[in-house]
């Protein structure tokens, strides 16, 4: 029997789950297809969620009422705010999540959504008619029809596992790879490339000598990944830190010829920022020690994830080098580490909703687009899910730009630059990072999320309340006060006769929002998060003002649209390299072209002149 849906999501990882969930929240009929129901919501690698840049993405997805933040809170056994000593814009919330609890939370949230069906089985092919996708065919021959198909297949496309000298087809260890679908996508003329990633061996925590290792306790604060989570509920555990040493490095160095990375079996590019231990030792030979975080995988499992020693060396070498480290002398490896080489689509073939430009109805999200990380995947799933649902519902597409979200930074980077290594979010990628804080994601994004219908009823109520309180506080903060008024109220400011708004006064380090209630009794803040957000807004306000002119220029250049079919080869003055990159990226505006790597202002001028000439010719 053939079933009909509006949107079909293939893959139940972080991208697939967010895509299916947001489409369902928006009110379209969704099928979430996974090899097994059990595999949905699995964390296949690191048990951590969040981090620098990544924590921002989690909060942004959460601002659309996404799953990842709330599920992380339900599963969090360890909280840590990274960069706590630095400005709020680069602070990154990060948790260790219990795998079982996380998956349970995701399953519960998906079950609560009306209009979302879970379909178990393997997808064997896409149903294509001309340049559009009409649905999928399952391995048992069942056809599922829909207006949009979102591929969120992770590393499952032509995945190949490597461990020492052996290699097998597969996405995650113990699971099958999507071979036939991969062949079809290759056949459809989509630009495909290969990347690799790796994972460390999993260790039995009962064989770790914890007493010998420095502990890293969970943060004492009470912050949570999602602001709607009321409090932390799961018991907290500590992580520990061990280190590699000369002996570890010697063993690894002697066995390099047995690593598929060095024997030539893998030639795909891995991430520079998350290199395997053999890569680190080879490339940074001068370092004699690397930190290894021992992260418990959950409350009811003994598995420990040794963060920092991703490897594809043979199991005997893995065991030997692990046991050189302090605290791990007796360690038993439960699952050896391995490397995965997999296909990804060159994301420059996608538009900003992550739809394949040349195929109607086909979207790609997550690792399939050359990214790495749960958070990056979740954010793409959200964007693709919204894109597909908007088309189904005839709504205008979601428009985000680099000055309003990390998600937009990532999408813009992907569709313009493509990837040469697995793409990971970094705060350094966001040039307007001062305005893109993890703590103001709700304020930045929930309004547009609400407009599009992405917020569930509970979130909407919470958001409306919060917005009202925020507006009221900001209104009071507009009032002008002199330095005398503040000083008399016991605030530490110089009595120099300055008179300015309370918001401007907030910029001073010794002026806090709750202290101002001594002057303005109506000023009350029910939530410490809102208070912190407003204080940070005030603190960085002068720097944001300085960016305004730059943003105006940027937006002016975004008004200059470029012909997607522009023949860059015909423009004099562009190097072959630039022509190639521009052809692949097909920038939609002059601003986008300016961000394509290697495009100089002189080249931009040439593109602009060429465009004007063509328009003049057309007009003539």
């Amino acid at each position, binding site marked *: 029997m053939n079933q009909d849906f509006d949107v079909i999501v293939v893959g139940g990882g972080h991208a697939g789950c967010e895509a299916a969930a947001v489409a369902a929240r928006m009110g379209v009929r969704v099928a979430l297809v996974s090899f097994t129901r059990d595999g949905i919501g699995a964390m296949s690698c690191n048990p951590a969620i969040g981090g620098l840049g990544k924590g921002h993405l989690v909060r942004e997805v959460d601002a659309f009422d996404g799953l990842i933040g709330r599920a992380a809170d339900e599963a969090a056994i360890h909280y840590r705010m990274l960069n706590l000593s630095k*400005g709020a814009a*680069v602070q990154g919330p990060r948790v260790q999540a219990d795998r079982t609890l996380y998956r349970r939370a995701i399953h519960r949230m998906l079950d609560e959504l009306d209009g979302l069906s879970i379909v178990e089985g393997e997808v064997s092919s896409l149903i294509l008619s001309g340049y559009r996708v009409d649905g999928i065919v399952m391995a048992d021959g069942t056809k599922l029809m829909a207006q949009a198909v979102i591929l969120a297949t992770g590393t499952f496309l032509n995945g190949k596992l490597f461990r020492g000298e052996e290699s097998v087809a597969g996405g995650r260890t113990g699971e099958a790879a999507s071979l036939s679908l991969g062949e079809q996508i290759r056949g459809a003329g989509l630009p495909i490339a290969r990347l690799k990633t790796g994972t460390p061996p999993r260790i039995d925590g009962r064989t770790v000598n914890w007493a010998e290792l420095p502990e890293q306790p969970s943060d004492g604060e009470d912050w949570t990944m999602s602001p709607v989570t009321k409090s932390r509920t799961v018991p907290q555990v500590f992580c520990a830190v061990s280190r590699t040493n000369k002996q570890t490095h010697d063993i690894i160095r002697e066995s390099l010829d047995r690593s598929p990375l060095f024997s030539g079996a893998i030639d795909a590019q891995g991430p520079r*920022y998350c290199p395997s231990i053999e890569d680190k030792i080879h490339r940074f030979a001068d370092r004699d020690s690397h930190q290894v975080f021992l992260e418990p995988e959950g409350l009811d499992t003994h598995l420990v994830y040794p963060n920092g020693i991703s490897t594809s060396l043979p199991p005997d070498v893995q065991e030997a080098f692990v046991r050189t480290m302090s605290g791990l002398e007796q360690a038993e490896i439960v699952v050896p580490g391995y490397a995965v080489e997999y296909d990804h689509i060159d994301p420059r073939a996608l538009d900003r909703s992550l739809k394949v430009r040349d195929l109607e109805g086909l979207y790609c999200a997550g690792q399939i687009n050359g990214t790495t990380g749960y958070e990056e995947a979740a954010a793409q799933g959200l964007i693709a899910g919204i894109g597909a649902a908007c088309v189904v519902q005839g709504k205008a597409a979601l428009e985000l730009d680099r000055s309003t979200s990390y998600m937009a930074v990532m999408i813009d980077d992907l569709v313009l630059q493509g990837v040469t290594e697995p793409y990971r979010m970094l705060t350094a990628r966001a040039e307007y990072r001062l305005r893109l804080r993890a703590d103001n994601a709700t304020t930045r994004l929930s309004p547009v999320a609400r407009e599009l219908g992405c917020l569930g009823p509970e979130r909407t109520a919470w958001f409306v309340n919060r917005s009202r309180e925020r507006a009221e506080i900001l209104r009071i903060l507009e009032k002008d006060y002199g330095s005398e008024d503040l000083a008399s109220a016991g605030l530490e400011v110089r009595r120099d006769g300055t008179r300015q708004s309370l918001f401007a006064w907030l910029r001073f380090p010794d002026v806090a929002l709750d202290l101002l209630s001594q002057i303005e009794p109506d000023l009350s803040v029910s939530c410490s998060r809102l208070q912190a957000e407003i204080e940070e807004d005030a603190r960085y306000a002068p720097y944001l003002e300085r960016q305004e002119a730059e943003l105006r220029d940027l937006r002016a250049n975004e008004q200059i649209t470029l012909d997607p079919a522009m023949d860059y080869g015909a423009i004099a003055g562009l190097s072959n390299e630039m022509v190639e990159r521009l052809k692949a990226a097909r920038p939609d505006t002059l601003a986008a072209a300016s961000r394509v790597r290697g495009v100089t*202002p002189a080249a931009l*001028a040439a593109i602009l002149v060429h465009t004007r000439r063509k328009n003049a010719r057309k007009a003539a």
Partner: protein
Amino acid sequence: MSAEDTIFALSSGQPPAAIAVLRVSGDRARDVLCNLTGSVPDERRASLVQVRDPDSDDLLDMALALWFPGPHTATGEDLAELHCHGGRAVVRAIESVLSKQTGLRKAEPGEFTRRAFANGRMDLAEAEGLSDLLFAETEIQRRSAMQMAGGSLSRQVEEWQKMLLALSAQVEAELDFSDEDDVVPAQLEKIRQSTGTLATTIGDILKRPRTEKLREGIRVVLGGPPNSGKSTLLNALVDREAAIVSDIAGTTRDVIEVPVALGGIPFLFVDTAGLRDEAGEEIEQIGIERAHKQFDQADVILWLGEEGQGPDSMALIELAARKDHPEHRKKSSGVLALSPITGEGMNDLVDLLIEKAADLLPADQQLSVNERQAGHLAAVHDHVSDIGTESDFLIIAENLRLARQELDALTGRASTEHMLDSLFGNFCIGK
């Protein structure tokens, strides 16, 4: 006027000259060459051709023709050159035939350079240098323009870019990877030291005279009451060198400006003529105000009046300029006494002016910038100076980003990706 016209111009100096070079740039260049010479020579090879008027078939000249197909040409477009004999009549005749060709028009001043820039053949700083080079009329102007067109500013900026990129990489590593012990902590003191040095270097460049000074010349204002010998002195300076470059009309009718090159250095002599001819108190007042305005803008004031009566200015040089005159009054010892009539002391004055000019013009081989570039550099200076008192890495990173962006605006290039490249090249990052 449209940018897609094919343009032509006499690219060499004003005839008569031994050779005149006529340049044609644009889509029609090939056809034009074919129409006038009957053929298109091999690419980038000089061939001897007959230049004829296609309408009358009259032979205009025997010339060398060159054909450069775009885009790898000076302008980035198809380009043709005719090297013909440099007589006025020949040049005029060929120009007239060219202007009759369809789709062809005479180039606007600087249009070849504009096209070269628009077609990505040079960056902005190089384009500015080239434009100065084309304007250069004195040796020192030429050398300075050569430096710019050759990219010496661009190279310097590139060095600064590299340095700022390296600093950004350190700060970004601190912001994005500090939880991973493989990153060496960014050292605030070292960063401040580097940005401090850069601020000083740029500050020094900003203190130097702008390159516009090279084009406009050292502004020498002659001051003194009516009949103190200003005009005589001016005429003597001008006649002596007979090097009037062109006659620029005074900004007001009351001021005479005469450009003169002395020892290869451009000067602009300004005679505050208004003071002399006006009568009546009210007008006199206006004249004095104008004179003072001139004094304010002067690089050098030659004061011919009563000693000590001149405007209070560092630029002032007392002169006793009428040594030959019966009313000549000596000034203190050390004050140059001269006579424009007899020529006595004139060489000393010229030497003195050249010596002064050395302090006022960008020194040879020294990097100097124009007003536009100075604007960007001043912004860079502000951003890197701010780092000196900042300890929030987030704000340091923002200041570095803004500084890099201003340098980008100067010449081009660099992006977040460059910074990441630099970051990853220098650090072992990751867990």
